[in-house]
């Protein structure tokens, strides 16, 4: 029951809203929790035990950490002043072990389910090369839906308790709801405890404004997914699955098409998710912020899958960068290597785990790991070249906000994104490398208009729908980016205009959506991660 299906939109969501509103305020959280667990059950059946287990475990670790903190405080207060620091230090060490144990356990389950077969396969391949027989048998491991997402939320919560950003949660139900709010289960956004736990718990009544704004947001998501992404899916699959038959411009176009497909799909799904949350009065964190307006790869990652980026920054990048090892390097570096190299070194040490984990998080495939390393190299390159860039700007007296500087920057970033997504989508790293290499063979632009592209299952009308759809999305993006409508957005428009827009949106989804006879229903891409 993905978020774009009729069952979710026409049955599950309305029923959940109705039950929520009818329930007394005090038990509304139960309705949400029940909805979350039934949602999970409908998709993953008994694997819901994993979610439950994670929740119980996280709750326990949180309480343990909270209790240690309390004991530390009382003991330190009673102790003589000179001993206080020592007591705190001891407790800190214990808490650190608890947190480490908690993270290891959760990450371990995720790693076991997701990477065991990958690990076994590669190890066996190695063994075979060295002449011995296969060591580890492949296992049939079923992945619970959304495990990659709720595991990150659970780890984030434990770290937040450890850092005293949030108090440990006594109420198991509240924590369970934070980890199991049904719109977020499949694809995120990954929220922090402080962002959503309280408002989910409050059980505020539904409001007309939230309902209508939420619906519009959902429709907008459907527009992106059904009109654009589900059409491009046909073309993308035709080329990526038979990549040996193509080269040059066809591969390049497919890489662009996939990037657009992924954006429309993922951000469209996020619109549905955030819109659903909005209907309950819950503001979920945004996951996209006009990523194609980015001027460099670093900015792109602050605008694309933002909650994952923020999570890695908060729970991996900063902790690594202020760890004692890095601090030692810092001291050493500044003495012997100078500022530039020290900064570069720190950046490399802090960035590497982030991007290795980012690649691994997407799944057990070498091309995802390559994808992570690709961005590691590019981002590190960005840091390394920073002084050169400033010098060039100064030398030419260039204005870095001027269009002549910005547009080439944006286009350069597009090329980086497209190439990255080529590897991301390719059927394995070897296929990705071959596709990349074949892009530079027989680069004949006339293939774009000589009818080659009509052979991939899309006709002229489909391309027209895709093109027009993208244009609309681009215009809306531009309006948002430049804040042309102000904070209130569509509310500033007069009612007839606004309504006309709504009707237009509804009808274009219904009429131009790629569903029904002649189309396939396309599963959500990120639900597999």
């Amino acid at each position, binding site marked *: *029951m993905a978020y774009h*299906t*009729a*069952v979710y939109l*026409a*049955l599950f969501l309305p029923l959940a809203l109705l039950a929520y509103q009818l329930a007394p305020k005090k038990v509304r959280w139960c309705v949400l929790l029940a909805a979350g667990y039934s949602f999970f059950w*409908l*998709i993953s059946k008994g694997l819901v035990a994993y979610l439950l287990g994670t929740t119980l475990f996280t709750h326990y670790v949180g309480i343990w950490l909270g209790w240690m903190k309390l004991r530390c405080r009382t003991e330190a207060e009673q102790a003589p002043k000179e001993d206080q620091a020592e007591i705190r230090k001891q407790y800190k060490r214990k808490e650190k072990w608890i947190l480490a144990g908690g993270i290891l356990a959760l990450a371990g389950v995720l790693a076991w389910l997701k990477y065991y077969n990958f690990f076994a396969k590669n190890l066996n391949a190695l063994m075979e090369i060295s002449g011995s027989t296969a060591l580890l048998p492949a296992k049939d491991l079923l992945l619970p839906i959304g495990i990659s997402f709720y595991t990150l939320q659970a780890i984030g919560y434990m770290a937040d308790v450890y850092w005293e950003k949030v108090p440990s949660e006594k109420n198991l139900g509240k924590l369970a709801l934070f980890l199991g709010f049904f719109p977020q289960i499949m694809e995120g956004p990954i929220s922090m405890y402080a962002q959503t736990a309280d408002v989910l718990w409050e059980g505020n009544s539904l409001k*007309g404004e939230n309902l*209508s704004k939420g619906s519009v947001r959902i429709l907008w998501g459907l527009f992106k997914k059904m009109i654009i992404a589900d059409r491009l899916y046909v073309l993308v699959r035709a080329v990526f699955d038979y990549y040996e038959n193509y080269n040059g411009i066809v591969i390049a176009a497919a890489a662009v098409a996939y990037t657009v497909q992924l954006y429309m799909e993922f951000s469209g799904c996020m619109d549905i998710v955030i819109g659903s949350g909005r209907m309950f009065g819950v503001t979920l964190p945004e996951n996209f912020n006009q990523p194609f307006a980015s001027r460099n790869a670093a900015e792109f990652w602050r605008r694309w899958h933002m909650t994952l980026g923020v999570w890695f920054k908060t729970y991996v990048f900063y902790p690594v960068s202020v760890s004692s090892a890095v601090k030692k390097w810092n001291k050493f570096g500044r003495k012997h290597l100078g500022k530039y190299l020290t900064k570069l070194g720190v950046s490399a040490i802090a960035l590497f785990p982030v991007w290795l984990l980012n690649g691994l998080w997407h799944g057990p495939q070498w091309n995802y790991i390559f994808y992570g390393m690709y961005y590691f190299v590019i981002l590190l390159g960005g840091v390394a070249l920073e002084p050169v860039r400033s010098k060039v700007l100064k030398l030419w007296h260039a204005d870095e906000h001027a269009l002549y500087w910005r547009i080439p920057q944006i286009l350069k970033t597009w090329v980086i994104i497209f190439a990255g997504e080529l590897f991301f989508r390719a059927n394995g790293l070897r296929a990705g490398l071959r596709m990349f290499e074949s892009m530079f063979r027989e680069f004949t632009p006339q293939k774009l208009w000589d009818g080659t592209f009509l052979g991939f299952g899309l*006709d*002229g*009308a*489909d391309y*027209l729908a895709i093109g027009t759809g993208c244009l609309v999305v681009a215009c809306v993006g531009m309006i948002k980016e430049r804040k042309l409508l102000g904070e209130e957005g569509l509310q500033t428009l007069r*009612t007839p205009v606004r*309504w006309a827009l*709504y*009707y237009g949106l*509804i*009808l274009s989804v*219904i*009429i*131009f*959506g790629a*569903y*029904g*006879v*002649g189309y396939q229903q396309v599963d959500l891409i990120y639900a597999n991660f």
Partner: protein
Amino acid sequence: MQIFKNILFILILVILLTGISGWMESAAKDEDLVQGRNKSISRIRREPDQTIDVLILGDSLSYSSIAPLILWKDHGITSYVCGQPGQKIQETYYLLKTALEKQSPRLLILETNVLFRGQGRLDGLEQSVAEAGNYHFPIFRFHDIWKPLLMEKLYKGENYKGFEIRDGIQSYKEEDYMKESMQKKEMGENVEGYMERIVEMCREKNVEILLLSTPSPQNYNYRKHNTLAEYAQKQNLSYMNMNMAVKEIGIDWKTDSLDKGDHLNLSGACKVTAYLGEYLDKSEWKLPDHRGDAALSAWEKEAEEFEKKVAEKLKVMRGK
């Protein structure tokens, strides 16, 4: 105030949807503008009102096995196949509902393979919601009509009252696939509920029901037979299993199978239809002979053309 505004908004939306639905539905009567399984809907809606006496529903087995124009030629029975590849029970139900708007058939023949096409609970629910939407707001079903209208591209297809001429031959290596057994194969999930609604709808409109299993070694066995026979008895429906009468029908698996015992080809269909015609003739339902009926002269012409085509094809197929 806000409440009125909301109601007004929804009212206008419903008017828009119904309006466009109506327009699309009438445009979709041109079957060249719709594709695939939607053609069945367009076609049955295009038949003149109250002319069809036997309505045939089912999956690909139905339109591969029963040729209405043969029933016409030999018995003067007007029938129509509303079959769709892999038809789901929800589609069967709403297709019947659509057909009964303009037709009052005396008999519904339901190819029983549909009853075993179960869906998971979630898929079934999704399908139910989707088909209900398609039925009540045809804009959902025919939304894609903008494409042929805009691009002036037509989806051409032959139509012989819903029957499809399939002239390939891939023999089925004969085996006794109807070995007697006591076991039963369960019907698909969701199916019984929809069957109840179908039976009820037919009772209301005085339509008799014949459950029919056409010859298909790949799709039928004795376990399914047991289930169907029991179900028919319980619901007081007629049931005919042609797989039990393959010899009488005269099926020759060397020449009559399209794809190794899955579907019948034209040669097999001719035999099955002839057998069915005899059966209907002798049946209690007393289906009228419309041959010579001036209002149905179009049938005469179509049947002649069809006969010519079939004769040619059969010569090639059986000559092998």
